[in-house]
C-alpha cells in the first residue's frame, strides 16, 4: 500500500508550518523598550456586558481617567467572556504595557496567578465590585453580603416581621448573587415568621424577571413582599399588569426603580439598596493614586445605603433624572474618590 503519501505529506506540511511559525515569531521578537513616564495607561477588564450597571461602571472608569488628567490612554476589555477569556484579556494588557489594571473579576480565586504575573512586572492591580484576596493587589468593592442583608432587613421590618416573601435572585453561580443570598439568609434568621414562598433566578434580566413575577402573582400565591437582586422596576410593573395591589419591593438604585419610589408613593413603597456602578471610577482613582506613589487603602469597601421615599428625598431627588436609562445605576458619585462631572460621565468618553 503506497497510497498514503497524501496523508504523510499533509502532516509533514503541518509540522513544517508549525516550526516555521515559531521561527518567524522568534525572529520578530524585537527589543522591548519600556515606555516613558509621560502619562499612565490604564486597563479595565470586565466580562459581563449588556446590563446598565456594567455600562455605568465602564463610563465611570472612563470619566474618572479623563477627569484625573494623568491618564494617556486606556486598554478596555469590556466584553462577554468567561474566566479563561478574562485571564487572556489581562495577559494582553500586560503585553500592551499598561501601568495598572482594574479588574471586575469573574472568579474570586482564578485570577490570582495572572494578577501575580502582573504584579511581577510592577503593574498595579485593582479588583472592583467583587473582593479578591491576593498579595500586592488592591480592592474596591460594594459589600454584597451587606447589600442582601440590609435590603432584607428593611423589607422584613416593613412587613412587621411576618408574611410571605419572594426572593428574586440574579444568575446562579455568580459570586455577587451568592454573597447577596448569604446576606438575605442572615437577615432571615432574625425573623422566624417570614416565609420565603418562592426563590427564583432572574438571570439579572428585566423581561424574564417580570414574567416570573407575573406567574407567581397569577398562581394565587399570597405575596406580602418582594426582595430583588436588582431586577426591580419591571417587577413593580408586574403588579400593575397583574392588577394586584403593590407590596413592598426591595430593589437597587436603578433609575427606573428610584423614579417609581418617588412617583408612585404612597401606593407603592419600596427601598433602593445602593450598589453604585461608579465603583469603576473608584477603581481608576485608586490606581492613579498608587501610580502617583501615594498611599491608598488596600480595600475600599462601600457599605450600601438604603433609600426610601420620602426619608431619603435628598439623595433620590439628586439622582432621579427623567431621561436616564431605567436600568442604569443612579448613584453617580462616590466622594471623595470620583472627581468627574456628570457631563463627563454621560459622555462616556475616556482620554
Amino acid at each position, binding site marked *: 500500500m503506497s497510497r*498514503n503519501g*497524501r*496523508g504523510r*505529506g*499533509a*502532516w509533514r*506540511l*503541518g509540522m513544517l*508550518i*508549525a516550526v*516555521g*511559525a*515559531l521561527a*518567524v*515569531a*522568534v525572529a*520578530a*521578537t*524585537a527589543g*522591548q*523598550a*519600556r*515606555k516613558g513616564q509621560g502619562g499612565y495607561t490604564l486597563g479595565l477588564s470586565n466580562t459581563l*456586558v449588556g446590563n446598565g450597571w456594567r455600562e455605568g461602571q465602564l463610563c465611570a472608569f472612563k470619566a474618572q481617567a479623563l477627569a484625573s488628567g494623568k491618564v494617556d*490612554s*486606556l*486598554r*478596555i*476589555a*469590556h*466584553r*462577554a*467572556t*468567561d*474566566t*479563561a*477569556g478574562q*485571564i*487572556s*484579556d489581562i*495577559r*494582553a*494588557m*500586560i*503585553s*500592551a*504595557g499598561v501601568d495598572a489594571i482594574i479588574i471586575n473579576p*469573574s*472568579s474570586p*480565586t*482564578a485570577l*490570582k*496567578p495572572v494578577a501575580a504575573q502582573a504584579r511581577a*512586572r510592577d503593574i498595579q492591580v485593582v479588583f472592583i465590585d467583587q473582593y479578591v484576596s491576593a498579595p500586592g493587589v488592591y480592592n474596591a468593592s460594594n459589600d454584597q453580603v451587606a447589600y442582601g442583608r440590609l435590603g432584607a432587613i428593611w423589607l422584613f421590618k416593613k412587613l412587621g416581621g411576618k408574611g410571605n416573601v419572594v426572593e428574586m435572585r440574579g*444568575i*446562579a*453561580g*455568580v*459570586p455577587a448573587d*451568592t454573597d447577596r443570598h448569604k446576606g438575605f439568609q442572615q437577615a432571615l434568621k432574625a425573623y422566624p415568621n417570614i416565609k420565603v414562598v418562592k426563590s427564583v433566578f432572574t438571570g439579572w434580566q428585566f423581561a424574564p424577571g417580570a414574567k416570573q413575577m407575573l406567574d407567581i402573582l397569577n398562581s394565587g400565591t399570597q405575596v406580602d413582599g418582594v426582595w430583588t437582586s436588582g431586577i426591580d422596576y419591571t417587577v413593580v410593573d408586574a403588579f400593575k399588569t397583574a392588577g394586584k395591589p403593590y407590596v413592598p419591593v426591595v430593589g437597587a438604585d436603578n433609575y427606573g426603580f428610584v423614579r417609581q419610589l418617588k412617583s408612585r408613593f404612597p401606593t407603592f413603597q419600596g427601598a433602593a439598596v445602593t450598589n453604585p456602578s461608579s465603583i469603576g471610577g473608584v477603581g481608576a482613582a485608586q490606581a492613579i493614586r498608587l501610580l502617583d506613589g501615594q498611599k491608598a487603602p488596600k480595600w475600599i469597601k462601600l457599605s450600601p445605603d438604603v433609600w426610601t421615599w420620602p426619608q431619603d428625598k435628598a439623595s433620590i431627588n439628586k439622582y432621579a433624572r427623567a431621561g436616564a436609562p431605567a436600568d442604569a445605576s443612579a448613584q453617580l458619585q462616590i466622594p471623595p474618590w470620583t472627581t468627574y462631572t456628570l457631563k463627563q460621565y454621560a459622555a462616556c468618553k475616556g482620554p
Partner: protein
Amino acid sequence: MTSATVTAHEYRGVPAWRRNLRLHGWTIGVWLVLLAMVPYWRSLSQQSFEFDIQALAIDALPLCFAAMAQAVVVISGGIDLSVGSLMGLMNVISAKHMIGMSFREAILFSLVILLLSALAGGFTGLVITFTRIPDIVVTLGMLFVWYGVGLWVMEIPGGGAPQQFYDLALGSIGSTQVPGAMVIVFAALVVLWLPIRWLRPGLSIYAVGSNRNAAYLSGIGVARTRVGAYMLGGVFAGLAGLALTATAGIGDPNSGSIYTLNSVAAVVLGGVSLLGGVGGLIGPIAAAYILTLSKTILLIRGTDPNYAAVYQGILIILVVVIGGLLSRKTHR
C-alpha cells in the same frame, strides 16, 4: 492493454498540484495568515517573546480543542451546538473532584473525564441516529441538558486542580520556550486524530459526511460512524473542558457557553465545509489561534475589543463568500 478505441476515455485527470491546492490550499493559507499576524503582534507588544507566545498558547488552548471537537462532527456531516455546554460540564466535574487530588490521581481522573465526555458525545450521537431528528435540533436540546447537569454538579464557580496539573498547560517544555499548551494541542492531534484519519474509521467519517448514501452503499455502518464521530467530538470537548480547568484554574458552569459559536467560527475559517466531508483539524487549530490573536492585537492596540466582534462577524462572512466564489470557479 487493448488500446483500440479507448482514446475517448483515456482520462487524463486533474494535475496533482491543483488537486493538492484544493485539498490543502485552505489549510496552508490559514497558517500563512497566522504567520503574517505574528510580526505585527510582536511589534505592538511590550513584553518578551516567551511571555507572549505562552499567553497565546494558553489563551487559545480551550478554543483549539473546542474547534477540533466541532470539526470532527462537522466533517461527519453534523453540527454540534452542545460543544460549549459539554465542555463546561467536563470543566466543573474535573474541577470539583480534582481539587484534593495528587497529580497522579488528577491525570488518571482526566482519563475518566475523557471517557465520560466520549460517552456523553456518543449519547448525543445515539439520540440523533435513533430518532432521526436533525443534528442541529438534538444538539440544541443537549446544549440545555449539559448546561443543566453542569449547574447541578457545581452551582457556584469553584474547585480546582493540583498545581502540576495547571503547569501542564501553563508551563514550557523543559528549558525550551516551547509552550506546553501548544504541545498538548499537537500531541492530541497526533495521538487522537492522525492515527484514524487515514484508516477506515477516519475515512468513514469523511465518507459519511461527504455522501451518506454512497458511504452506506460502500458498506459503511453509517449510524455507527456518526455516533463514533460524536464520541470523538466528545473526547475533544472533554479535553477542552480539562483545558478550561487548567487555564482558568477553576470550574465554572457558565464557562463553556461562549465556545459553541466560536468553535463554529473556527471550523468555518479553518476550511471545514459545513456540508461535511471536507477539511481537517489542522486548519481549525490555526483558525483558533487567529481568532484568539486578533482579539489580543485589538486590545493591545487600544481599540475597543467589541470591534473584534464586528470584525470577526465580517471576516467569517467574507471568508465564506470568497471561499464559495473560489470553489465555484475551480469546480467547473
